[in-house]
């Protein structure tokens, strides 16, 4: 089993947290995982991205040029990483910020998630990242949704643990969107 993924958006959308949770979920399933934040002179409001690799065996490079999966949370990220997704790969798009007409790629699966609407449904638009993460995990099967939920505990600082329930709801909502299409 091998999976790699680039998660990108602008600062504040919680893309680094998404990467961390995914890696923790993989660990909970006794898999190997690497998490590599983009490293540059970045600032708030700038772009942010991280790379997560999950495998049964030893992981070589934590840096991936052409990922199997990319999650793009805004338009600049789509432009940068959309064309890089490997043939047959998966592109998960935050449809609340990226118009569908921009998503024109051949040979890959594209999953449009109206993350803001779904997040508002479960209570708060800031949960959009968890909606998208839940959807990605359901679609790719990289880890079990159960492991993803459990990963919130080690990934979040204790003072945010009271938010775990609502984060779980957001993940479930994203996953349900993938299975039911609404």
């Amino acid at each position, binding site marked *: 089993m091998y999976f790699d993924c680039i998660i990108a958006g602008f600062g504040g959308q919680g893309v680094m947290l998404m990467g961390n949770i995914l890696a923790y979920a993989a660990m909970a399933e006794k898999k190997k995982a690497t998490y590599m934040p983009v490293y540059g002179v970045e600032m708030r409001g700038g772009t942010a991205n991280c790379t997560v690799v999950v495998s049964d065996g030893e992981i*070589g490079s934590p840096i991936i040029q052409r990922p199997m999966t990319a999650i793009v949370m805004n338009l600049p990220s789509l432009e940068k990483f959309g064309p890089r997704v490997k043939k047959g790969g998966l592109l998960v798009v935050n449809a609340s910020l990226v118009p569908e007409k921009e998503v024109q790629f051949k040979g890959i699966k594209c999953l449009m998630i109206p993350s803001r609407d779904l997040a508002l449904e479960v209570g708060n638009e800031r949960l959009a990242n968890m909606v998208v993460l839940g959807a990605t995990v359901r679609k790719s099967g990289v880890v079990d949704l159960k492991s993803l939920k459990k990963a919130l505990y080690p990934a979040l600082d204790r003072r945010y643990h009271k938010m775990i329930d609502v984060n779980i709801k957001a993940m479930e909502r994203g996953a349900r969107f993938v299975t039911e299409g609404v």
Partner: protein
Amino acid sequence: MAEAEFIKGNEAIAMGAIEAGCRFYFGYPITPQNDIPEYMSRHLPDVGGTFIQAESEIASINMLLGASSTGARAMTSSSSPGISLKQEGISYMCGSQIPGVIVNMSRSGPGLGGIDPSQGDYFQATRGGGHGDYRTIVLAPHSVQENYDLTMKAFDLADKYRNPVLILGDALLGQMKEPIRRRKYRKKEFPKDWTMTGAKGREKRLIKSLYLSEGELTDHNWMLNKKYQSMKREIMFETQFMEGAKLVVVAFGSVARILKSTVQMARDRGMKVGLFRPITLFPFPYAALDKISHSIKNFMALELNTGQMLEDLKLSVGHKKNQVDFYGRPPGSIPSPDELFNEIKKIYKKRIG
């Protein structure tokens, strides 16, 4: 076995240090290693240790010299320009035979350069770096687990040889997070009959690097040289896919890590490529590479610089009819496994067909 923990590379170094008994840390902030002082400042007081943010890099290396001369386990960390500032102190530590662990999570140069991963400090690290005829042991981890394990080892080696030990990494190894397993550190005891602990009730001791009597400094230098030679028994390296290899790619640290994916890609495509990864950069595994060159003739060094470890590779296998090729990527961007594959493919085609 302990449960796996998900840890940032820099933090793994700090964790390993504290578990190996490091009780003094001195440093001055610089990207990309600030997680090390941050961790130390939070956790050293819990174990009765001392954290000092010094006024400069020069102050911190001399604080390390002072703390270590009492026999305590102590560490400093910085990044390339800061490590340059520490060179005078490192030279004095070597001349006075004072142990200590120095971490260089290097950035790019020359000068202030940038903050990208770089291996441009290879010469500085392996050839001494400061003035005088000296060497430090240099350990080059390629994973977060190794950051942790090799930091523990660094303290033992420093005490064993009464010599500074340098850990050489970069932003990739410092910023990456991976699961690691902690292990119980078994402290080895080393003679401390040289330490400055107060001379009450015993003969006085002197730690110095100034030798003015006739012949004294010559003898001192030869004695140090003998010590550096004896470090050969600490040589560490890793190999992968060497069986039937026609081309051996040689790399350390972050590039070696990326190459592990590349070599797998090459093997999947039927190319007979093996990987040789020096873990100790000083002492360099010359003999091991020389031995390999009896059956394999083609070598290629890959580095995040314009050719430094390449020289050591040539010293190992550059004789006879061996081919030594090179791909360098000076700092600015990190090469992906695919990019490295294309570079290796070119050489493979040219040398093997």
